[in-house]
């Protein structure tokens, strides 16, 4: 029996929508799970009650609201609240996509670099455009840390510019690689259990207990990672937006 840990990342067209240039635009399983994530978020936020004493679902939606709101306030200040819908959407989309992806037989939207890169670039251009629109050329102060001696300033500025433009790369690859690696590891351990059982019979099933336990532990870890990566993505977005709102270190 062959284990293919990469297979779960295949993007399969379900039906074709049309063409843009020479690209076929298809509704794929990735598209399906994107809309599933959007649907879950909408369902969670729009059907939770408005009780004075919240129930469970209402608590989840209110906790996520307060969580993201306090994240923005603490990192980007009160001015950052104008990006609340964006950051909230990003956080919820990534978090729900990651969590849905842990369910067996599902597809993980965020395990594709093109998706995370698109989200990271969205943040990058939001920061760039809003920073220039709000502060004009003063936005360039973001590259000039204060309190640095003059003779070392060119070097520091070069590093700052480089790091600024590398942000979308690290921002997207971090999420993508975490999800990809976690799912591959899960698949390898889970597949190992089945492979042992299939090839060695009873001895294999007994021997499969260890990799099974590991797979269970990894699933727990992946749950943590799923939330954590969404949080990291969102808080980095806040930190980057803080540069746009308050340029100059």
């Amino acid at each position: 029996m062959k284990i293919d840990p990469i297979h779960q990342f295949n993007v399969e067209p379900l039906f074709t929508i049309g063409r843009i240039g020479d690209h076929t635009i298809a509704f794929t399983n990735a598209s399906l799970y994107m809309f599933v994530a959007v649907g879950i978020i909408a369902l969670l936020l729009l059907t939770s009650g408005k009780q004075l004493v919240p129930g469970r679902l209402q608590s989840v939606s209110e906790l996520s609201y307060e969580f993201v709101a306090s994240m923005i306030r603490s990192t980007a200040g009160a001015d950052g609240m104008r990006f609340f819908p964006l950051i909230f959407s990003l956080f919820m989309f990534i978090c729900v996509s990651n969590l849905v992806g842990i369910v067996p037989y599902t597809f993980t939207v965020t395990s594709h670099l093109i998706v995370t890169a698109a989200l990271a670039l969205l943040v990058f251009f939001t920061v760039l455009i809003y920073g220039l629109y709000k502060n004009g050329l003063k936005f360039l102060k973001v590259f000039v840390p204060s309190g640095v001696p003059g003779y070392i300033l060119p070097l520091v500025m070069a590093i700052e510019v480089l790091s600024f433009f590398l942000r979308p790369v690290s921002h997207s690859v971090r999420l993508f690689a975490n999800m990809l690696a976690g799912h591959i590891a899960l698949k390898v351990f889970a597949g190992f259990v089945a492979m042992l059982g299939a090839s060695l019979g009873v001895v294999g099933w007994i021997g499969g207990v260890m990799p099974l336990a590991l797979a269970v532990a990894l699933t727990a870890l992946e749950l943590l990672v799923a939330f954590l990566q969404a949080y990291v993505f969102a808080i980095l977005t806040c930190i980057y937006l803080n540069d746009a709102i308050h340029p100059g270190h």
Partner: protein
Amino acid sequence: MAESHGGATGTGAHTEADGGHHGGGFPPFESSTFASQLVSLAIAFVALYLIVSRLALPRVGGAIEARQNKIEGDLAEAQKLKDQSEAALKAYEGELAAARARAQAIGNESREKANAQADAERKTLEQQLAAKLAEAEKTIASTRATAMSNVRGIAADAAGTIVQQLTGVVPDAASVNAAVDASLKG
């Protein structure tokens, strides 16, 4: 299709069937799927953004704010009621103090009135007693004067009789009277 890590059974068959389709490449780097993914992501994320910004956040934020307002309103109401009860307590204590003062004033007044009345009564009584005493003393004095004059008559008679008995001579009344008077004075 969306085969995941849950079970490995049947994975091989799927992989072989799909192998030709994808050319065995690494799916996240299959550039032929990028356009589809970007289009769906754009649609899905814009839809999510609109739902979140137009409907969800006002809704959830409204519920939180309503709760905050309710709590603040209730606290303000409680504070108001507390102030009211404190004011009532203060008014009650004021009333109590005033009533106590009034009661004391009434007590003092009635005590003074009673004292004055008692004094007046005692004074009239004393006057009456004094009058009676004076009258009684007068009666005593007159009685004593009468008695004394009687005593003199008796003494004169007794002296005349004693002299007659001793001497056998009847003394004249004038000298006897003079002798009695002299001894009564002495």
